[in-house]
């Protein structure tokens, strides 16, 4: 089952796909552009993986890692499908990152990898923007790079784990203004989902609603104000975002 969360006519609704349109829980069916899309869930702790695809790690010139490169993100950075993300005028390299987002469904503590997939409720698409100009070498990548307002796009749908056949064989694609720029597959994970849950739950308790952004494959390019960025993952849909300029935010 696919579920979204949308604002429409003064309230927030659960929504499901209805052909190319959306059906609200109360029965109303509307066009996709008539509703405001929120992230399909209010995330608990958000984990993000750096360099979790071998080719992307090579692209950024990183060598073998001893443990997964995990960093955390706050709730304020999250926006939904069809939202806008600000590109500061002074930067030279802002890039999208299409990622499979794993949503935890059960409290998880010291979970072994053989059992780990039982703790997954489902999946959604993430577009985890980064501004490379702001990278500094302290607690890298720091929040000015990775936790900006509007910098983490989630959606459109939360998809039950049971509806996804082999989560380790999903194609991921990013299109910028309709042109394919990023084309990867979750079979190329450096650390797989089950291993990530084993790793994280070995030193902290995971809770329902926690979200793991599993990293992005190679193929990141700079985006500019006005660009439309579409992230697509097999079985999960298409997540649309538009880059906005400082002027839009009265800067």
């Amino acid at each position, binding site marked *: 089952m696919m579920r979204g969360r949308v604002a429409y006519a003064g309230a927030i609704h659960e929504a499901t796909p209805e052909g190319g349109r959306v059906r609200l829980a109360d029965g109303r069916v509307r066009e996709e552009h008539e509703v405001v899309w929120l992230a399909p869930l209010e995330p608990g702790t958000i984990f993000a993986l750096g360099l979790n695809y071998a080719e992307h790690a090579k692209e950024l010139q990183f060598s073998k890692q001893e443990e997964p490169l995990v960093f955390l993100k706050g709730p304020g950075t999250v926006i939904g499908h069809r939202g806008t993300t600000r590109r500061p005028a002074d930067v030279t390299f802002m890039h999208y990152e299409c990622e499979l987002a794993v949503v935890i469904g059960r409290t998880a503590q010291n979970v072994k990898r053989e059992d780990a997939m039982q703790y997954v409720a489902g999946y959604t698409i993430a577009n985890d923007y980064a501004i490379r100009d702001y990278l500094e070498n*302290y607690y890298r990548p720091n929040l000015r790079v990775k936790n900006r307002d509007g910098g983490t796009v989630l959606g459109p749908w939360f998809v039950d784990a049971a509806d996804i056949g082999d989560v380790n064989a999903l194609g991921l694609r990013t299109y910028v203004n309709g042109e394919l720029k990023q084309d990867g597959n979750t079979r190329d994970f450096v650390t797989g989902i089950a291993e990530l849950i084993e790793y994280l739950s070995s030193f902290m308790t995971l809770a329902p609603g926690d979200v793991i952004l599993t990293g992005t494959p190679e193929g990141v390019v700079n985006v500019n104000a006005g660009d439309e960025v579409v992230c697509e993952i097999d079985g999960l849909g298409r997540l649309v975002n538009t880059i906005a300029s400082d002027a839009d935010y009265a800067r």
Partner: protein
Amino acid sequence: MFSVADHLLHVEGEALPRDVNAAAVHALLATCAACRAPVSGAVYGTLLNDRHALEALGEAVNAPPYKAPPRAPILYLKPRNTLAGHRARVIVPGNEGVQVGASLGIVIGRTAARVAAHEAFDYVAGYTLVADLSVPHASVYRPSVRFRARDNFCVIGPAVVARSHVANPDQLALAVNVEGRPAFHATTATSVRSVAQLLADVTDFMTLAPGDVITLGVPHGAPVVQAGERATLAIGDWAPLEIEFVAAHAAQGAQA
């Protein structure tokens, strides 16, 4: 919405927090009450915001892997599994102990986006004590989250003290006692960014929500404790925050 009129604390076992005066806080805590964290928003830690901590890094800031001194505020998340309150029991994971970082916590009262330093205090509901715990680690380049994100590794409280009670948050004394003996003292006056400047620089790129907490940062030289020890943290004359450190096997025994 988040607001505090006097002192906000959440006694363990009670449904809702209480908002009471300082005398009532002391009376409640004298009954050995444990507390929950008095806040439930996002908690952001600030790193290297103490001049002494930067001085201790010395020339290393210009050498690899750092290559340059920090420019923007350095922040990290203390995720929800880390939040705990007064008299928390914290598991010491290994032989290297746990570093007890005492910091002023700034509690946000209004949605704070692109706040100017001169109006920053309008967005502050109050202040609290944050025990920002970590497994000691030397490198601040790309440390593992397992050093700071363990369960109960962010002990907050006992209370949120209303802003009106704090004349100058940039002139507060911090102290940590371990087993009743003074182990550490510092002041918020040595911060690189003041409370107002930190809020201005952070809210330029990320909005803080009511009930969120951002630490002013742990001063240099935070003490390390071992299992079996108790730490007491204090800011000025506020009610102190107590933490009990236990070994992993002791914690399992207590649960069984």
